[in-house]
């Protein structure tokens, strides 16, 4: 499968083009479940210390990809290299993972739950308890330290699990849909936490289908649709996949200047809307002025990540659907 990595090619030396070391390097990951191809040749390169978003519609293969990167499941084919190791489970202690379906032992106290998660990653129990208490205090949950998980609200329990994910100070943190189920205040807190982690050199990778979070947080993203990655690279590069949109208001309703507008330009109310021609804004302006359009207003808007995502994921989803149909036909 040919995957467009944009200007984000990956070398064999686990560094990107700008020489940054890679925390995650995956090549051609494939995973099938009972004949259904959930992930189909995914390539990913996540630089160390960056915040990397895995974007995709529901059922796109985001969670399966993350589970393969964590070693929870093995790919049917392809390779993965996480923090320099081929087997992610060997360096599980350097990884933090917050799964989409959160879960803690309901009878455990909040401090013990954090200490248990820390102990799983090799932190001695006593130290885990001490750190857990400290983290709870830091995050304004000190009062809940000795409460059982079942006595906490869902949001609070999620925060406890988040702290348990970070208590062992991992080098790589994987969040699967971390914002789901959180209120706006806690979403903001989580965003700050993620930025703080990256600032300290921790690599953060998270999946989401809410583009706004990725737009605010991510250095780079991978868009997954139908198990494939139609785009991976910096956020700006994704936006640049779409041409800027022009909104033009003119005094003249007709004239020579109309020839400067692209064929798909549409007129709504007092405005013309069209994609900025590849020749750029200056030739357009010149043609409008020389054609005596009488420009009243002209704005050029750079597309948001949401527009880019819909454009990229939508096309890919359609392609994946076609490919699946062909595959089913050929297997008959």
């Amino acid at each position, binding site marked *: 499968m040919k995957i467009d990595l944009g200007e984000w090619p990956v070398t064999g030396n686990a560094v990107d083009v700008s020489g940054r070391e890679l925390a995650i390097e995956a090549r051609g990951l494939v995973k099938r479940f009972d004949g259904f191809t959930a992930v189909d040749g995914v390539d990913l390169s996540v630089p160390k210390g960056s915040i990397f978003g895995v974007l995709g519609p529901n059922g796109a293969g985001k969670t399966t990809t993350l589970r393969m990167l964590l070693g929870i*499941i093995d790919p049917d084919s392809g390779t993965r290299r996480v923090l320099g190791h081929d087997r992610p489970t060997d360096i*599980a202690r350097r990884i933090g993972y917050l*799964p989409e*379906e959160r879960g803690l032992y*309901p009878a455990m106290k909040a401090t013990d739950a954090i200490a248990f*998660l820390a102990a*799983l*990653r090799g932190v001695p129990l*006593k130290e885990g308890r001490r750190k857990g208490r400290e983290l709870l205090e830091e995050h304004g949950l000190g009062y809940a330290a000795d409460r059982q998980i079942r006595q906490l609200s869902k949001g609070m329990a999620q925060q406890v699990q988040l702290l348990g994910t970070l208590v062992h100070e991992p080098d790589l943190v994987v969040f699967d849909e971390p914002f789901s189920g959180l209120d706006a205040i806690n979403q903001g807190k989580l965003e700050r936490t993620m930025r703080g982690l990256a600032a300290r050199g921790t690599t953060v990778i998270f999946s989401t289908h809410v583009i706004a979070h990725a737009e605010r947080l991510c250095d780079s993203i991978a868009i997954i649709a139908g198990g494939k990655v139609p785009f991976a690279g910096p956020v700006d590069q994704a936006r640049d996949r779409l041409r800027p949109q022009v909104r033009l208001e003119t005094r003249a309703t007709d004239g020579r200047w109309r020839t400067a507008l692209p064929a798909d330009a549409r007129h709504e109310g007092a405005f013309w809307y069209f994609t900025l021609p590849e020749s750029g804004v200056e030739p357009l302006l010149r043609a409008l002025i020389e054609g005596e359009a009488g420009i009243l207003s002209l704005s050029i808007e750079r597309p948001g990540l949401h527009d880019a995502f819909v454009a990229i994921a939508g096309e890919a989803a359609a392609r994946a659907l076609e490919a699946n149909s062909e595959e089913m036909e050929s297997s008959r």
Partner: protein
Amino acid sequence: MNSPKPRPAWFQASWFHAAWVVARRDFVAVIFSKAFIFFLLGPLFLGFIGVLAGSIGSHVQHDLDRPQIGVAMPAHSGDALVVARNAMSGHMAGPVPEFVVLERLRTGETFDARKALKSGRGATHGGQLAAVVGGTLEAPVLTGTRERVDAWQGMVSAFAARAVQAAPAAYPAVTLDQVASTADTVRNGQLVTAQAGQTLLFLLTMLLAGMVLSNLVEEKANKIIEVLAASIPLDALFLGKLFAMLAVSLVGIAVWGAGYGALMLAGMRSLPILDAPAVGWPLFLVLGFLYFAMAYLLLGSMFLTIGGMASTVREVQTLSMPATMLQLIVFFLATYALARPGTWIETLSLVFPVSSPYAMLARAAQSGDLWPHLVALAWQALWVGLIIRFGAQLFRRTVMKSGPSQRRKRRWFALAKRQPA
């Protein structure tokens, strides 16, 4: 306050540490739960029900099983037969049914024994008419069901002979010369000890190993399994869970043992006397502990694997019946092999991993050789490891959906079929 001595770095970073973390969590969670109190009280209910059922059963048995033999003979022959029975019953082995005169027949008179047995009339003191002796003392006729007539024909013959002929004036007194044991009694005693050991081992594993079935349901229901699978090897998870439940079981056994001992002391009763096993009591107890641990780990690892496939408590309940049947089959195999030393069935019970602990404990009661126990324990431990490994891989493949896809497997099989013969 002294801080605990930190564990060595190799342990902290090892597979065993992961198992230890899981085992510690599970052990604490079970021991400090309210349900554990009920678990400890379980045998109390069991004992209470046992005593109640035994008492009722013995009453019923007492009421029901008092067979009598009716006598229907000419003139005084019947009375003479009853006198002979009363005189000889003390010298007969086993219980002797009561004789009841149904009819003193006159010359030419007949008696329908079959009709009397059918109606049951004529029995006395709440007994049941089980057979009828007719005919004459010289040629008695015993009517009854096959089992009854087979069992009693010799006895009736002896009583009739005594009634006809003059009895000895007195039975001679026998001088008793007792010895502590004979080869026969030692063998039989050790057999009883072996059976008792096997039964206790079976009861404990049946009572305790079933708990493991539902052990992974909590993790699956609470979605913790993802975090566990991402953090530690699944083998370590399985091992930790298994040892946690073993430790819980040992706590239970210690509490029940102490409770039983205290009850015996309070009632000034002695423990049931069993003959000393061939390896001696101290070693037998050590081996009993080790074989219990092995039986528990073997069955537990199988149950953990089976239970791991279940996603709800209801599914676990459905699985518990076949699991109990499996335990029973294993126990019957070991018990059956006990009385057949040197046969292939004994070898099977010794070698088959799940029955091996039962069979080897019985062997410890009957043979003083120690090296087979070392071999058997190593063999059983190997199988515990293999089953855990298999269980973890199966869990990973089926529940965590890892490993090769079904399609690839189907292709592999298709390829294998296409190979020329």
